[in-house]
């Protein structure tokens, strides 16, 4: 059976002060290690962004090229960055890894929006990212994310099962439609 392709966009725009952007998922290496067993994973890279685990990548591609790649992939995984908005525009569903930003404001209901707990959402959702400290606890652990992805793939088939409204594992991770 042909392996499905997952496009990942791991990083958000760098902070101007050089610190880690609070939107960046801290467990990409571990997550990719799990994913590559079942999927072909390709990273979208821009500028001098970190390359995750030497997986295949597409670097500095134009927006029309990225739109095409998103349309052609089986799913995408990204943080709260531009890719989920681009994917929404071209009609592609995927998985978005949230930390402290609220998917009900910045996400789309057709995606699987994954976060650890809404208690980590920042109080002021519209402040600049330079004002927000990084917190790795705000993110779902890679094992949990991998399980959720496996459950929902293939996500872009017409017959894909509906994403649940909320599925809560006691004391740990949420997914939210």
């Amino acid at each position, binding site marked *: 059976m042909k392996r499905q392709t997952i496009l990942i966009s791991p990083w958000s725009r760098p902070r101007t002060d050089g610190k880690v952007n609070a939107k960046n998922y801290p467990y990409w290496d571990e997550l990719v290690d799990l994913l590559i067993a079942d999927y072909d994973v390709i990273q979208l890279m821009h500028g001098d962004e970190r390359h995750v685990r030497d997986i295949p990548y597409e670097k500095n591609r134009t*927006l029309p090229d990225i739109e095409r790649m998103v349309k052609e992939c089986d799913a995408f995984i990204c943080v709260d960055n531009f890719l989920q908005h681009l994917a929404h525009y071209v009609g592609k569903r995927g998985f978005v890894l949230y930390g402290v930003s609220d998917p009900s*404001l910045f996400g789309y209901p057709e995606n699987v929006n994954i976060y650890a707990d809404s208690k980590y959402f920042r109080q002021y959702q519209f402040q600049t990212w330079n004002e927000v400290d990084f917190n790795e606890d705000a993110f779902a652990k890679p094992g949990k994310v991998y399980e959720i992805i496996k459950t929902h793939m293939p996500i872009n088939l017409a017959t894909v099962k509906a994403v649940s409204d909320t599925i809560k594992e006691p004391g740990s991770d949420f997914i939210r439609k």
Partner: protein
Amino acid sequence: MEYKYADVTAVVPTCNRYFSTLPLTIMAIINQEVLPSHLIIYDDSPDKLDLRTNHLWARMFKTIEAKGINWSVLFGEGKGQAVLHNRSISDATTQYIWRVDDDCVPEPNVLITLLEEIDKGRGHIGAVGGLVLPPEDLQPCPAALNGTMRDVFLGRNVAWYLREGDPMHVEHLYSTFLYDKKAASHGYRQDLSPASHREETIFTHQMYLNGWDLVFTPHAVTWHYRNPEGGIRMRKEEDFLHDEAVFHKVIFEEWKMKHTDPKVFILDDGIGDHYAFKHALRDYLATTTRGVMIYCCYPDVFKDMTFKVSMYSLADAIHLYGRPYVEKYNIYKYMAENNWKGSLTEAYKSLYQI
């Protein structure tokens, strides 16, 4: 002394600027590389002087005569420039009229440059204008300006800004320009106030609508001293309001322009935000016939929409509207101020009321 002349009447309506900018204007006209054969000064001042009795003016008139230019000073009735320019069409005995405001100082090559453009047009050109620059505020031309009537709704004119490059065809002209009397059969509006606000826009655009070409050339530079005394600055606010109402009537009822003023969007945010906005824009474009102008950071996001939208840089927006105005359209500021609970796309729709 030998001079070259052109079959041109220089027309200068004036009001209360005898001893400020008007002498500068007249000297600039009579020091052109090619001289107008005639000069008419229309004096619309409330308290008119016989300038021949003034020491300075008497010598200026002698200089004009020494240069072989036929000159006259005709009195107006205080009804403003539009009436006087209308009168000049019949008073001038030459084919071409070069209208120059009484606080404008054309460089020596202006008339010859305007005439060269007329010549290139082989009878199709109704009017030619050049740069009309405020020396105290020289700025590069915003990319959004293109010489069409849209510029009027943006409140700007290509003539006001430094520009290089070739002459271009436009839909209206500003302030000072050279025109062919054959293209002026429609005359100037006679229902404007003495302020005559918008008179040259209406006059030249009607010329354009009548099938004449209008040309703007950046190679002819006239300095605009924007005299705070006299002239249009004497007029009352209600005069401007009246003229603006006339202008709107002309545009929407006589010319039947529709939605000429474009819908403007300003995006000072990231690529993702641009895409979220694009979704809102797609919905809007499906329902409107208005032109759309987008000032943004990532124009590539809208590459597939360029047949419907005009793209400009965010720097252009800051240049045209100023940073405080641009910051009003910061989507995150808007969301914070409104305690926004909906999606980013819905926030854009709300901000821009689309």
